[in-house]
């Protein structure tokens, strides 16, 4: 919905929702906006429908305020809390089924490359930990093996949040959750290692308490995916509802977990490093 393709009929301006007009007038379409500019432009419709204190919503906003090419970005999501907020952003978004997000994105990216040769169309997958690492793990990994030029973002709240707080593969070992009544019996899946083994060119693990780092990682991930192949960003997003903590405590929790076991991690392949430095030189 860049301003080039969207015009509101002058006769209808007075009845259009305010936020829709603002997205057209003050949207992120130039692509040079970052989180530092938040407040001077509009990245998505305000008042998200998720729970108070939801860090997924916070991380989503950080991402939407950092896209390098929002006027030509298509998002692919999955079933879960994240699927409820996509339509607040003024970019095309696909909800397919639960777990098939990377497969849909593979077909989509190839189709857009066929239809728009020489133009950049970014495809960004955003899904929860259950969709990415459990029910959709085969499709996540195979899209990476095939070197699809897509960015995969995991909102890692370490459980199935939308269905009420069940154990997921990303839940830490020992944690008691629904469907793990005596505590989880195996380790948290090491998706970072899997991403590395499967050939991702950029990998980052960050927490929702670090919006600037999320923004930086997302920009790098999308830019590298365009030229080289798959990239992966994993974001810890504590869920106040299912972790039974106060909404105002979630950011503190993200910081504590970061200290304990979710330190910032970044991997950039040699090829990707060369790409980034050549882009830096050409600036």
């Amino acid at each position, binding site marked *: 919905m860049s301003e080039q393709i969207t015009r509101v009929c002058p006769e209808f301006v007075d009845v259009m929702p305010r936020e829709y007009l603002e997205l057209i007038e003050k949207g992120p379409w130039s692509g040079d906006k970052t989180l530092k500019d938040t407040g001077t432009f509009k990245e998505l419709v305000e008042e998200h429908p998720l729970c108070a204190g939801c860090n997924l919503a916070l991380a989503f906003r950080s991402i939407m305020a950092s896209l390098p090419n929002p006027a*030509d970005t298509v998002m*692919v999501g999955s079933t879960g809390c994240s699927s409820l907020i996509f339509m607040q952003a003024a970019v095309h978004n696909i909800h397919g*089924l639960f777990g098939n997000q990377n497969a849909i994105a593979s077909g989509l990216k190839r189709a857009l490359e066929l239809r728009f040769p020489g133009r950049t169309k970014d495809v960004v997958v955003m899904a929860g930990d259950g969709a990415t690492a459990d029910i959709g793990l*085969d499709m996540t990994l195979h899209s990476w093996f095939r070197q699809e030029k897509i960015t995969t973002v995991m909102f890692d709240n370490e459980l199935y949040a939308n269905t009420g707080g069940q154990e997921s593969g990303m839940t830490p070992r020992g944690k008691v959750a629904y469907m793990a009544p005596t505590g989880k019996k195996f380790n948290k899946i090491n998706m970072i290692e899997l991403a590395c083994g499967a050939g991702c060119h950029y990998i980052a693990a960050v927490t929702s308490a670090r919006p600037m780092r999320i923004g930086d990682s997302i920009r790098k991930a999308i830019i590298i995916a365009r030229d080289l192949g798959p990239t992966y960003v994993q974001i810890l997003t504590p869920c106040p509802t299912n972790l039974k903590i106060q909404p105002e405590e979630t950011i503190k929790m993200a910081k504590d977990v970061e200290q304990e076991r979710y330190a910032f991690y970044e991997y950039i392949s040699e090829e990707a490093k060369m790409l980034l430095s050549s882009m830096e030189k050409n600036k």
Partner: protein
Amino acid sequence: MNSINVRPPEYLLFEAKRETQFITGSEAVKEAVRRANIDMAISYPITPQSESMHLVGDLYAEGYIKDYFRGENEFAVMSEVSGASFGGVRVFTATCGPGTMRAFELFPMWAGARLPIVCAFMTRGVNAPLTIQPDNIEMGFLLETGLLMVFAETAQDIYDMLLASFMVAEEKDVHLPVGVFMDGFFITHTREQVRIISEDVCLPPYNPKTAPVAVMDMETPPFRLMRDPFVMKSNFVSYAAHASWQQEVRAAAVRSKKHFNKYLKSPLEIENPSAEIMIVAGGTAVSQAREAIVMTKEDGIDVGLVKLKLIRPFPSTELALACAGAKKIFIPEFNIAGWLAKEVASIIPDNSRIIGAPRVYGGMTMPPELIVETIKKNV
């Protein structure tokens, strides 16, 4: 690959000069796809489908298709073709039996998302016990998915129906997926004479701008911008939104009928319409019925035949009319469930006329003698 000229579908289907080739059903798939101006095809092996998608792969190597790859399983492949279709290209794939079952969640999603995907189904039995043999029970499962369904009797049908299906699927008042069904092995792996046109013409390309829903390419404004998605709400408006969309998908299927009538010429074919004994069948059961009718004629029993080409939308009115004068209606099928007999029973008056037999399954063949015997026992 020589230069290819785009021609109207009517030219490819009805006007162009044809030559006869002695080819398999899988090769008929290839020859249709060669002329279908497809952008992308995605494959996954399963017997008896694999050969057709190998041949489609050859077309990619020859330059007839722009992108082609093997996906990781049928659920993934059907997701990948949907991604391609969301992105606005013409896409093709094929599967069968257990592959259909694994991918099942995608078919209603294709219809609901109004994706004009064409998928071939080389029907095969489903497990357990393990079978790779022909059996079309999967069609019974697919009847209410929103997929439009055409049923090929011969390799000639495969060729013509595939070309027609792309055109119907992409009509702007339809824009729904089409499944082209064929009995696995019986026609995919046997040779017959197929009349096809020259290799240097193809269908017009898909124009995604005519789609009744937005193509996910950021070339049009997103229309779903909202603060509270319907899925969050337990109220009348959210239910009505989903309900009315389901109605619209079914209405689009009804609208497809006029296009099928145009490109397939008719949704069904009738032979000997005045006979008091009729056989209603689809797929290779039609060929077996034809043989049986020759045999009953020798015994002085007059039998007519209805060949169903269109299964969804079901040609209810035409079939009821074709069976109006029949005293007995035999429905031979290659599956244990008798989905076609149930379908026919649901739309014609006086169901006591229907004999849902013979039925073979699990890979069994249907000798014409079996049909003759069934008729003689019941008249």
